[in-house]
């Protein structure tokens, strides 16, 4: 659906800021693709390259076979009706009502009035704003404003929806509601969603694939579950620990080391149906070990569940090693946490 080949964007002259640096990405039809990075990583520029709001300095961007960087201004306006966008700060027209805002892209596309009204009604139901259709944006909550933003973006039946930090201005509960709505839209309408964010929670909750950006480059990409299990880059590990390790993990480990210095700390990672099997109880039945649970956590992603469990295993001599090997045979990743 979307192909980026060695895309670079430099602002100003040759010594200008290099916002996007040689990015190559491939985003499949109907995927929810997340791009995560801290502010200044170049993700905002990258997403604006996809609908031609920014022009690449070099490289090629194709969406559904059309080369975005070389189409005429007129064609680009047509493309933008099929690659729509929602924003962190919603960017609604305050002077128009909910209905008026949703009708705006239809007016731009030249849809006749009767058809426009019919479509607006449908969209109001789709995003759950029935009853608020004649309100002005100033009278709406943040979540409702983003629903208007989503309805507006869907008005011309786009193939791609770009989300620019779409939930960053919302509280956690509203964030989840908007993410659920996006997942629902992705499944019902089959459109491709590209979202940029700095919150790993958003990636975990709805994305199928993820790319991690740092200083204009994509440092890691892959299926969300894979990236969660085997983060490679330092920055990715930091993002993954945002959701897999609750606050205080480090302190908990330090505390256990102090209290029971001769135990072995082991981090277990469970994937998919392994998270639902009683591996621990069979471990304790089969081996002469004591097990102390330090911390546990299960993370649900679009690709499946992913659990981590930190144990302290106490036992005589080689029995601890055997226990760890048993866990590995059972399909659980077990890794001894070395004190550093």
């Amino acid at each position: 659906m979307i192909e980026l080949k060695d895309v670079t964007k430099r602002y100003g002259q040759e010594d200008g800021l290099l916002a996007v640096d040689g990015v190559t990405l491939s985003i499949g039809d109907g995927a929810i693709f997340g791009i995560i990075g801290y502010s200044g990583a170049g993700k905002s520029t990258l997403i604006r390259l996809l609908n031609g709001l920014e022009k690449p300095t070099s490289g090629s961007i194709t969406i559904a076979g059309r080369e975005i960087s070389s189409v005429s201004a007129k064609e680009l306006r047509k493309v933008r009706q099929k690659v729509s966008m929602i924003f962190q700060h919603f960017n609604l027209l305050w002077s128009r009502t909910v209905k008026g805002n949703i009708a705006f892209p239809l007016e731009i596309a030249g849809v006749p009035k009767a058809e426009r009204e019919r479509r607006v009604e449908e969209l109001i139901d789709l995003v759950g704003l029935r009853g608020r259709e004649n309100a002005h944006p100033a009278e709406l909550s943040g979540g409702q404003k983003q629903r208007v933003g989503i309805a507006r973006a869907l008005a011309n039946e786009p193939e791609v929806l770009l989300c620019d930090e779409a939930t960053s201005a919302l509280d956690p509960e509203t964030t989840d509601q908007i993410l659920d709505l996006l997942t629902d839209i992705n499944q019902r309408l089959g459109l491709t969603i590209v979202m940029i964010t700095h919150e790993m929670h958003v990636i975990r909750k709805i994305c199928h694939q993820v790319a991690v950006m740092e200083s204009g480059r994509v440092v890691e990409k892959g299926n969300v579950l894979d990236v969660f299990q085997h983060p490679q880059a330092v920055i990715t590990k930091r993002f993954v620990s945002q959701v897999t390790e609750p606050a205080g993990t480090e302190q908990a480990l330090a505390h256990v080391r102090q209290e029971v210095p001769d135990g072995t700390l082991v981090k277990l990672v469970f994937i998919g149906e392994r998270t639902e099997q009683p591996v621990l109880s069979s471990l304790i039945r089969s081996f002469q070990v004591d097990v102390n649970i330090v911390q546990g956590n299960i993370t649900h992603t679009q690709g499946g569940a992913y659990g981590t469990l930190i144990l302290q295993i106490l036992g005589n001599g080689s029995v601890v090693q055997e226990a760890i090997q048993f866990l590995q045979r059972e399909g659980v990743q077990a890794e001894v946490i070395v004190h550093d």
Partner: protein
Amino acid sequence: MIETIFPNVDWDVLWEATKETIYMTVASTIFTFILGLILGIVLFLSSPGQLWANRLLNFITSAFVNVFRSIPFLILIILLIPFTKLIMESMRGPQAALPALVIGAAPFYARMVLIALQEIDKGVIEAARSMGAKTTTIIFKVLIPESLPALISGITVTAISLLGFTAMAGVIGAGGLGNAAFLDGFQRNRGDVTMAATILILIIVFIIQFVGDAAVKKMDKR
């Protein structure tokens, strides 16, 4: 009662003068709104980072606005006499005041339009572009509606200063209440006529301000 306070006022003549003043103010306000809006939009769109970012166009428009904003109105009327004769075919009467009024006030209003447009959230313009809007669509469906309260309060202020300008234009032959206060009142030493003309001008100012404020209040949904 009224006869004792205003012994020298011929109310029919003063009513004619009032109508001339209203005509000059309303007509010049309408043309100032149109010309000032066009100038303001060109100034805005040609500034760096905007849709028509163009240094030359921005320079020429700003120069035009700054020069005509700086010329004192009385001098502007005199400077524009040949131009006025050309397009109005006369130098007398309320119509003859219009070119100078509009050219004097439109640059002033253009600055207010520019400020109003700069207040619009950049994200809203970006959103319209992301939907595939043409620049004309952005002008008529985003820039103007989104800045309308500021545009209206700006034109209210401008209309009131235009009313002041009409009084000055009146002195040099355009008629209206300024003419009445100066020729009939001051030069013939009839203080009551000047007073009556002043009161009428004040009433017009209050009406303009009231209508302008009410319109802004009704429109502003922020």
